[in-house]
Structure formats: C-alpha cells, structure tokens
C-alpha cells in the first residue's frame, strides 16, 4: 500500500504529526513513493526560492522600542482627549453670558484691578475670541511664546493637577512637540493664563530669545515675583 498524499505532504513539509512509523518503513522500501516524495520536495524548494524573490526589507524595530512607542502613543491620545475636552469647554466659555465664560474671565484676568472691572460697561458681556490647550507633560516642559506683542501679559500658576493648560484671550495658536508648547499670537497683543503642574521638575518659559522663568530640579532657579494670588505675572 503506497503512502497517501497526506502522508507524503507531512514528510515534505516536515510536519511530524502525520507520518506513522509504518509509513516511514514503507518509504524506505518503495522507490515509487520515494520518487513522489522527491518531486514534492523539489516543488516545495522551488516555491521557497521564488517567494524569497518578492520579499522587501523588513523594518528593524526592537521590542522594547515598540513598547515605548505604545506608551508614548497612549500618552499622546490622553493629551489629545484632554485638549479636546478643554477646547469644548473653551467653546462653551466663548458663548456670551454663559456662566463658564464669566468664570474664566475672572480667573484669567484676576490681576486686573477691581476698579477696572467695576468700570466696565454694564450689559451683555462682549464675546472675545479665545483659544486654549491642555495636555499632560513629561518630566520637562518648555513653553515658548514666539515674538509676543507688548501690551499683553502672561500669568503663570503652579497647580496640583497633572495637566498643563494654556488659555489666551485671543486667537492664538498652540502647538505641542513632545515636551515643548509653542504659542503664536499672530502678531496681536494678547494675554495668557498658563497652569503648570507643580510635579514637573524642569520648566523653562521663553519669550522669543529671552528666558523669563526657569524651574530646575523642582526649584525656581530664577526668582520671578509672585502676585497676591501666588501666580507669576510677566508683562510682554
């Protein structure tokens, strides 16, 4: 009895589950089955050679680097979600007379004098275009204000939460590159409120080429003046 096709296939492909000892014994004494097996093996070798010809170079990535990239992606997605939530809140805040709008105006412009606030004309609050961003930083943070126009100011608060948030009273653009937040005011004087988690040990804030605030190893290495609320205010 000659070997079945399944037995010959298993011998061809080196799959040890199928061929029995009887099959191997038969093969040793049957030239016909030996020849059939050799034909199958030659075809298999030919196909293997042909397939190698279409291969492209595989990307070389280490498993540890891949795991790191997965963690980084997860953090980015978290930051984007937080940013979106912040933008939704910002949009709600921009609605005239909305309670959130009123609250944010008070928070962002807390440094303005009470007199100035009292002198504002009564009636509906004029909606201001605004923009903001929020994200969770790594162990360092650099904030760069590109060529801010004089007339605006920056108010920096250290907060207990995990999230950096920046809000402008105008149509500023924010971009985040790894540990850097870049702010562009498009040449219009505007004011910013920036909240930075206390837990971030390394912080640098620059306006153009000038460094205005440095926190190194958890300690302010420059001594910006705090206002009465404990925030640091810088005039552009």
């Amino acid at each position: 009895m000659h070997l079945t096709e399944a037995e010959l296939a298993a011998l061809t492909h080196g799959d040890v589950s199928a061929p029995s000892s009887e099959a191997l014994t038969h093969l040793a004494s049957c030239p016909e089955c030996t020849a059939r097996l050799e034909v199958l093996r030659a075809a298999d070798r030919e196909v293997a050679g042909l397939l190698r010809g279409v291969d492209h170079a595989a990307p070389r990535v280490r498993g540890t680097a891949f795991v790191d990239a997965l963690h980084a992606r997860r953090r980015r997605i978290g930051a984007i979600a937080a940013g979106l939530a912040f933008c939704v809140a910002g949009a709600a805040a921009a609605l005239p007379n909305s309670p959130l709008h009123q609250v944010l105006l008070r928070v962002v412009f807390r440094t303005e004098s009470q007199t100035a606030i009292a002198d504002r004309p009564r009636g509906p609050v004029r909606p201001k275009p605004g923009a903001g961003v929020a994200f969770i930083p790594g162990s360092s943070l650099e904030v760069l204000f590109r060529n801010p126009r004089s007339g605006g100011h920056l108010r920096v608060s250290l907060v207990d939460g995990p999230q950096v948030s920046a809000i402008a009273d105008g149509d500023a653009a924010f971009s985040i590159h790894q540990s850097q937040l870049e702010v562009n005011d498009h040449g219009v004087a505007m004011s910013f409120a920036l909240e930075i988690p206390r837990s971030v040990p390394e912080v640098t804030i620059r306006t153009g080429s000038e460094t205005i605030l440095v926190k190194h190893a958890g300690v302010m290495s420059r001594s910006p003046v705090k206002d009465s609320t404990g925030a640091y205010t810088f005039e552009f």
Partner: protein
Amino acid sequence: MKIQNAFEVSFARLFDERFVALYRYLDRLSGDPDLAEDLAQEAFVRLHRRGEIPNDARAWLVAVASNLFRDERRRVKRRQSLLARQPADLTLGMPPSSPDDDAERGDRKIRVRRALDRLSLRDREMLLLRHEGYSYREIASALGVVESGVGTMLIRATDAFRASFNEKDNAPD
C-alpha cells in the same frame, strides 16, 4: 522609558522573535510592504492591549494579522465597487506600478507576484504560512480549517502556484 512588568518583558521578547516573520508573511500576502508593516504592527498593538500572552502566541498573532488583512481587502473591494474606476482584476497585492518600479523589478519577481495574486486567498495564506515555518496545527488554527486536511491543501496550493507562475500569459508585459 523602562519596560514595566513581566508581561511587557515577554511581549518585547515575542516582538523581537516574531515581528519580522509576521511582516514577511504579510508582505508576501499583500505585495504591499507599507500595508504589511501597518498590519504586523496592529497585530502586536492588539496583543499588547490584550494584556497577556496567549498560549499559542505565534498562531494567535498570525490569525489576527490574517483577519486584519482580510478586513483591509474587503475595504479595498468596497471602495473599488463604489468608485467603479479601478480595473476589475486589480487586487490589493498589485499596487499600481510606475515605469521606475517596473524597471527595478526583475521579470521573475513580477511573475511571482502575479502568480501569488492569482491564487485564492486561502491557498495564498496557506502557502505563505507554510513557507514561514508554521506547523499544520498553527495553519489550521489561523485559517479555520481541519488540521488533517492541511497537508493535502498545501500540495494543491503549491501546484496551483507553480502552474500560475509558469503560465504563458504570466510573462511580463
């Protein structure tokens, strides 16, 4: 960043062992190295999301990757049928080629690619898994076929591939 736990140590080791093989299988299956990279990566992303290494990780990964490829193939076919612009016989495995590409490819490479694309998806998957070193059991598990039939099906797929490769109309244009 340091890898944090035993799962991630095992995961990284498995990645080092299996990523290239999985990529090569998908590259041969699709003829599209970018897609192969995306799908191989996605299979590992899903494994990482799973949070534990399955008992038969090789078979698990290749089953997930094969499903991802089939999904992608279905999406491409849907787009083709909606747009009705693509040639009817265009498959995922034959991205539009430029004169430069054709110049770079050898005749043999083109013929192999065409022969692969002419196989049924099942035959192609089976043949490529076999030539990536997967066992009958792993192939059966990945493709949902009976293990005892894998050997015979492989011989049929091999014959079909060789016949297609040697067909006269498979000569390069």
